[in-house]
Structures are given as structure tokens and as C-alpha cells.
């Protein structure tokens, strides 16, 4: 393959990355994106000709958990990401510059790469009281996020706060916290929820973008199908125990030590779409269910209100706990029906909560659409409706 001057491949080779490592990275990316092996070559070709795209990483009502997740990146590593793959021109937590020099770096990138820089947003954006609950360099997050995103080629919302409002937006949402999609219009947005997002999904999305010049296919919440296309319950290593009626009854019991199903301890895996069981965490070392705690549904909209209390089990399922030999297709169908019913219950509960926890007054702001309500879970989204094309707001 020809080496384009200034290309990413060129840059990597100059920095001592071997061609073998580079191809390994390409195949790892193809695997994360669930692409057939032939795509490895295409990824390699695309990366060989791309210059390092500038990236502006914005933090608002956040805990820096997604930034920490970024630091755990392994394919490529964060050092490779920052030095070789991207040009991270603004990131408050890791950048050398401070104060007005930091803001100048951001402004320089916005000017020089108008329409061509990527933005990652971490944290929600408060809109109550003129947005004064989050100010940086004397300006509100609301003002800044709109200005910076307006010139972006695309925006990635990293983590559940940026994606759906997250914890700050949990009832009663005291500061009027909003998602990126709520306050930014006219640019393509891709959502990577989870608390925090799994960095392997971020690097896969960036690679997809660099490789194919487009976003991966997404569901109705703008979540990439390769990462949010199937339920945790369907890919869970403990699923066989669910089907066999083998459940942990209390923490530290015999079933807990045998790695049985955590459904009765409140696991929300059946309601949650995420590739957590496959990609796992920290270089595939473990994941919540693998370490004996149920899933809490952290990649789902409104999970702070709809999935709590975390240790309350989903309503009884016909067939749960019955002998292995009688478990079959009928039970699985029953489970689906139950989850659909539970979705309704969740919605009612979410609605009922403000009765004793009044929703804070939300000042009228320019938010054209309200946050989409939590999806009635159990209704097939991806498989049956097909992949949605990446949304280009303003063109549709």
C-alpha cells in the first residue's frame, strides 16, 4: 500500500509502531465492530491515508469517569490515541495548557478546522437559571457546547450523562440537566451510554468513522448497533443457569459461589442492551455479572429512575425456578411477555415518583424536543426494525 505523506500509517511507522502491531490493531478493531475479517484491510487502508483528526473533548456536569475510561484504552492505547491516532487539542483533564491559553487552543482548532473537527462531550448540560450551574472560563456550558458543536463534523456523547442526562437528570433533576441531543441540533450525534462508557466502544466508533467516513448504524437512541444491538441477558455467561432455574438466592450462598444467575438479586440484564458481556472491562478482565453483582442497566435511558431500586427483582417469571427439563421455548416466550409488562411498570413508576419528589421548575430554553421516554423494554428494537441510518440532523 502506498504511504501517503502525513498519513496516520506514516505517522505510526515514524513513531516506532511496527506494521505488525498496526495490522493487529486493525483486526482488533474489526472484531470489536463485529465486521467480517476482510474489513481489516479496508481499515488499514483508511488509516494509512487519514491525517490525525483534531478532537475537542468537553466536560460539563461530569465525574470524569469517561475520561478515566479513555485512559484505560488498550486497542489502541491512550498514548497511541493521543499521540498518533487523534490530535486531542482540548481536554481539560489531560492538556498541558491552563486558563486562557487552554481556551485559545480550543478556539484555534475550531477556526482552523471549521466543519472538520470531532467533539466528544462528557457530562450533562444544565439549563435551569440560565445555565449557571456549570460555567467554564466565565461562560455557561450551554453556551459553550452549542458554539463548539456547531462547527464539528460530528459529536460523540460519551457516557449516560451526555447521552441521556444521566445522574444529574435523575429525579428531581435539580439543575435542569440535559443530554447533548437535547441542546445541540444540526450536527450528527452518536451516543455511547453506560456509566461510564466502555472505551473499547469509543475507539471502535472512531475507527469506523476514519475507515468508512460514516458512523456505524445505530438504534433509535443513536447507539451503535455493534455495541448496543443485543441484550445483556442474551449474551450473558450465566444465561444457562437462568434457563435451568439455578439462581443466587442471597449474597455469598452456594449458588453465588457457583456463578449462578443473579436475576433474583435484581439483575437488569434482561432489560439492557449493551455488549458488556462480550467486550467486558479492563482488557477483558471481568464485568459486573462476572464479579457476582447484577447488571443495573446503566446504558439505558433514565436507568437511575426506571431501574431502581437496583436489588428489587423483576416481577416473577413463569417458569423461573422450575426443573430444568421443563424449561423450553414456552418459558422464553413467557419471559419476553413479562419484560414487556415490566416496561410498563417502569414507566408508571417513573411517572409516579414526582408525586413525592417534585420535579424542579425547568426554565424555558431552546430545546425543541423533550428527552425521549424510556423504551418499553422487551419490545424488539434492533432486530425487528432494522438498523437505522446514521441520522444527519437538519437534512431529514
Amino acid at each position, binding site marked *: 500500500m502506498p504511504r501517503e505523506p502525513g498519513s496516520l500509517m506514516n505517522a505510526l511507522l515514524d513513531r516506532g509502531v511496527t506494521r505488525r502491531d498496526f495490522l493487529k490493531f486493525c483486526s482488533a478493531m474489526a472484531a470489536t465492530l463485529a465486521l467480517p475479517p476482510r474489513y481489516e484491510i479496508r481499515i488499514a487502508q483508511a488509516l494509512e491515508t487519514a491525517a490525525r483528526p483534531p478532537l475537542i473533548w468537553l466536560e460539563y456536569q461530569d465525574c470524569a469517569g469517561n475520561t478515566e475510561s479513555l485512559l484505560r484504552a488498550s486497542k489502541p492505547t491512550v498514548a497511541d490515541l493521543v499521540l498518533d491516532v487523534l490530535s486531542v487539542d482540548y481536554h481539560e483533564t489531560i492538556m498541558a*495548557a*491552563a486558563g486562557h491559553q487552554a481556551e485559545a487552543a480550543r478556539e484555534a482548532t475550531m477556526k482552523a478546522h471549521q466543519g472538520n473537527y470531532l467533539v466528544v462531550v462528557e457530562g450533562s448540560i444544565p439549563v435551569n437559571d440560565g445555565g449557571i450551574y456549570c460555567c467554564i472560563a466565565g461562560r455557561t456550558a450551554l453556551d459553550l457546547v452549542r458554539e463548539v458543536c456547531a462547527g464539528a463534523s460530528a459529536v460523540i456523547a460519551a457516557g449516560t450523562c451526555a447521552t441521556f442526562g444521566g445522574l444529574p437528570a435523575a429525579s428531581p433533576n435539580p439543575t435542569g440537566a440535559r443530554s447533548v441531543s437535547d441542546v445541540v441540533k444540526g450536527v450528527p450525534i452518536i451516543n455511547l451510554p453506560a456509566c461510564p462508557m466502555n472505551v473499547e466502544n469509543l475507539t471502535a466508533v472512531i475507527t469506523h468513522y476514519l475507515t468508512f467516513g460514516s458512523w456505524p448504524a445505530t438504534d433509535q437512541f443513536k447507539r451503535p448497533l455493534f455495541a448496543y444491538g443485543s441484550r445483556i441477558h442474551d449474551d450473558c455467561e450465566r444465561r444457562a443457569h437462568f434457563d435451568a432455574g439455578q439462581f443466587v438466592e442471597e449474597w*455469598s450462598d452456594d449458588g453465588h459461589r457457583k456463578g449462578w444467575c443473579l436475576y433474583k438479586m435484581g439483575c437488569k440484564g434482561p432489560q439492557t442492551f449493551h455488549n458488556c458481556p462480550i467486550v467486558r472491562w479492563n482488557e477483558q478482565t471481568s464485568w459486573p455479572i462476572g464479579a457476582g453483582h447484577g447488571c443495573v442497566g446503566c446504558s439505558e435511558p433514565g436507568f437511575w429512575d426506571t431501574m431502581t431500586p437496583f436489588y428489587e427483582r423483576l416481577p416473577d417469571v413463569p417458569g423461573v425456578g422450575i426443573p430444568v427439563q421443563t424449561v423450553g421455548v414456552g418459558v422464553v416466550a413467557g419471559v419476553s411477555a413479562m419484560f414487556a409488562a415490566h416496561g410498563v411498570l417502569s414507566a408508571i413508576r417513573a411517572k409516579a415518583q414526582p408525586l413525592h419528589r417534585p420535579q424542579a421548575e425547568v426554565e424555558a430554553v431552546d430545546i425543541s424536543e423533550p428527552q425521549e421516554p424510556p423504551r418499553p423494554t422487551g419490545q424488539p428494537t434492533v432486530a425487528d426494525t432494522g438498523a437505522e441510518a446514521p441520522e444527519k440532523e437538519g437534512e431529514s
Partner: protein
Amino acid sequence: MATERVVVDPLTRIEGHLRIETQVEGGKVTDAWSSATMWRGIELILKDRDPRDAWYFTQRICGVCTTVHALASVRAVENALGIEVPLNAVLIRNLIEAAQYMQDHVIHFYHLHALDWVDVVSALQADPEKAAQLATTTSDWPNNGVQHFTTVQNRLKAFVESGQLGIFANGYWGHPAQKLPPEANLMAVAHYLEALDWQRDFIRIHAILGSKNPHLQTYVVGGSTLAIDPNGQSVLNAERIALLQQLFKKGQAFVEQVYIPDLLAVASFYKEWAAIGGGHGNFLTYGDFPLTTGDPVTNPDILYQPRGIILNKDLSTVHPVEHAKVTEYVAHSWFDYRDGNGNGLHPWEGQTNPNYTGPRPSEGEAYETLITSDEAKYSWLKAPRYNDTPMEVGPLARMLVAYASKDAPNHNSVKEKVDTVLERLGVGPEALFSTLGRTAARGIETWVIAEVALDWLKMLTDNIGRGDLKVHNGAKWDPKTWPALAQGVGMTDAPRGALGHWVNIENQHIQNYQCVVPTTWNAGPRDAHGKRGPYEEALVGTPIADPERPLEILRTIHSFDPCMACAAHVVDTTGQEIVSVKVR
């Protein structure tokens, strides 16, 4: 002499959003104001929820100091309900926190603080051979050779020549206060990159013990969800324990062979900073790391790190901690107390009635200053005080209290290492009360913990070897077993300092929840008596060579390791009282 207002906003390389305003006169800071500019409202969001869920919510106070709020939270609920945690869970929690100290302190040193002392651009001029000589005189680390340093330098050169400077753009390179020779800069840059790889590998400890990092998911009121069975296939078994041993050993090697030698090498060029940034000289630690079962709140004697207070830099006396003496002021915070803002309130009697009085920026406009008058409110942080005295918390507080507490389990280890560091730098104990002392104490603590963590892992495996596989006490798991009213406090000492959670449970639900957090202690504003907070006091007297590039402000503020998301965590826009509980 001309007075200049020097503002740093955003103060970067920290967690969260911090604004520092200073008054500079004759090349020195003469006054300073520390302001938190972001709020979320987690304590209010917790109201009416299941107390067993609280740890999961409060852990999201911060993703950098992940796990510490989860720990304080489960301890608060366990304290309220009188639940004793099994020994395995005690040790699992200790090991998780030990790994957090090690990883967090290393990341702070290399990725948040180092660029205040290390000039990346100067590393381009270094002779890799001399850099290797410098590095090998202080350490046996295998990557300190000429070849590795040459590779790093070439990588850096290619990066700079690309014209896209990324995270290194607009740094204070070539600043007159930067004193490292090019070779030391190259060594530090090489280790900056190596530490990035190290932390990713090391923190797999959290994945083994806590399922994932950031935001671990094996905490549970009453113990841990990490099932243990040496004969089990998918739980904490011999294979996982072997991996833990390996990772802790690799962690210790990095700390002893890279972090500590780098700390000493860099500090030896900046000894004048042992006389800058000292601040009030009052230090508080709640202590941590229980070595047996029992409630750590009521049994401070079971703690490895002792609980205590040092006043006025006087190491001859360690004062006991009575949490009833903790109060918070709002005179300069964007809150009001109903009976006036003249007095501080204990967290159990606290009120959180926000009253933002700062400037309201319009679209595309930035405000100039928050300090519009001497009476101005200027921060989303309250001002915590102990017995009406501002206290510094963090590694320096812990190391001083341990150094002065002769009976403490960690005293000998701490004393030996503190004395070694002082001797190597050729300075006396008074040097600890400074910006440099704060940074050195963090390294010393990492060294202490890296050593003892392996002992705690052995305690865990010994206990498992005796056949004890219990990780959870379920006697009070069912809320029906709880009293109608319960109150608790959970204490821990997080990497950044003393952390307390106070919970009030009514009819199985959270009636109110309060956190008093390390960075609130350190970064809080003035109190009703006009007394500065620790950041503000520490900045007074700091030299500023170039007001356009106030590198020195970053040095002192970063030496505290700010975490603003932790500090500013509660809001109540309805103005209703969140907390109204009597001290029991």
C-alpha cells in the same frame, strides 16, 4: 506597586471545574480566591431512595476517585443499621482502596502534576545517553536505557514536527521557573508515557476485585458481591489470586523503581518549593484500612492509617477527631442559611438553600471576575471547618499524623520513608509543610501502601485457606428487619483526604444524605470570619514570574490534587431544607 488580577479558569489537569482568582503585587500572590463553578445535586437525588442503592449513586460523585464514595456510603449505611462486615469483605475493600491510592497517585504525579515541573519541549534537546546515565544512577528500571530514551525522543520529535501538538499545545514551555535539565525532562517524558501503560494494566486489580474500573460494581451493604471459592470456576479462585499477586508486585516495582526515583530527581531541582505553598498548617485525617472486623467509625484503633489532627505544624501532639466539631459555613458560598450566614452548621443540622449571586454570562460573553466585593459569594463549595479552624486533608495530612503517632501500625514504615526522602533531599521536617512537601508525601504514601498491600492480600488468602469463604453478612439485608429510624456516618480517607458521608434512614428510605468531601475541605472559600480556605492560604506568597503564564499557581494548586466533582455535589433549587437532624 502595581496590583494585577491573575485568573486561571479553567484550571486544567484536575478533575472538574475550578477557577482561581489571585491578586499579584511585586511578583507575588498577595490574595487568592478559589471557586467551584459546577453543580449537580446528587444528595438531593438520593432522597427517598433505597439506602442500599446509595453507594452506586454516590460513587458517581467522582470517576477519578472512583470507589471511595461507594466505600463511605456502604459504611454509613452499615453504621446506621449496625451491620458487621465479614473479614474477607473488609480485606477486599482494603485491597481495592490500596490499588486506588497507588493508581491515582501515580496518575496524579505523571499526568496531572508533572507538566508543572517538566518541560516537554526541552526534552527534544536532551542527549539520550546522558538521560540514561541519569536514570540508571537512581534506579534499576529496565526501560531506562539509551535505546528506549532515543525511541521516546524520536517519537516526540515526530509528534512536534507534525505541527499538531494536541494536548501539549500552549503549555508553559520555556517558562523561567522550569529548571530541569533536558535529560531529566526526557526521562520524565518517557516515564509519563510508560505510566500511561502501567496504570491501565495495574488497575485490572479493580476488575478482578470490583468487576470494572472506573466505577466498580461489587460493593454491597453488608460486604462484597465477589464470591470466593478456591474450587470455583467463575469467582475469586487461585488463578485470580495469582493474577492479583502479580499485578500488585508489578505495581510495587513501578512505584519503587520509577515513581519514587523520579520524585526525588525532580524535587532535587526545586528545593525552593519546600518554602512555598505551606498554608495554614492544620491537618485532619479520619484514618482508614481496618485490619479486623468491626465498625471503623467507632473503632479507630483497628485502622492501619491512624485518625488524628495536627495543629499549627506542631508534630509533638496528635489531637483526636470528634466529628461533632465539623461545621460548614456559607458566608462566601452560593447558599443561605435560614438563621443567617454568621455561623457554621454541623452536617447533621446542615441546610442547602442555594442562592446564586454571581454574574450571569450572556451568550458568547464571559464574566470577568467573581470577586465583586469583600462580601461577595463566589463558589459552589461550602467552607468546612473543624472547631472553627480550616483544615488541610490528603496524603500530607495522613503522613504527618502517621509520622507523629508512634503507636500507629503504619508509623515505622512511614517514618522510615519520610526520613529517607528528607535525607536524600537534604532538608528538614519543616520542608514537609509546603507545595513540595505535599507532592513528596503523596509519593511516600504510595510507597508505604505498595508494600503493605501485599500483606493484606496474604491476610485474605490465609483467611480463605482457613476455609472462610464468607463475603457478605445478610442478617439485615431485608429492609423489613430495619428500625423505622436509623442514622449513620461512614468515614474513609480517600486518596485526596478525609471523606465523610452522613445518612438518615426513615421507613426504609433515605430521608437525607450529606457528604463532606476532601476537596471541599481544601478548596472551600472563606468562612464567615473571613478566614481563607487552604488553597487560598497556600497561594499567598507564591512568586509569579510571568502573570501571563502563572505556572506557579498551577504548582501549588496541583500539589493538593483537586477533585471538583467531589467537592461540589449537592444542590436544592427549591430552597427546601435537605438536612435537619440532631447530632446524636
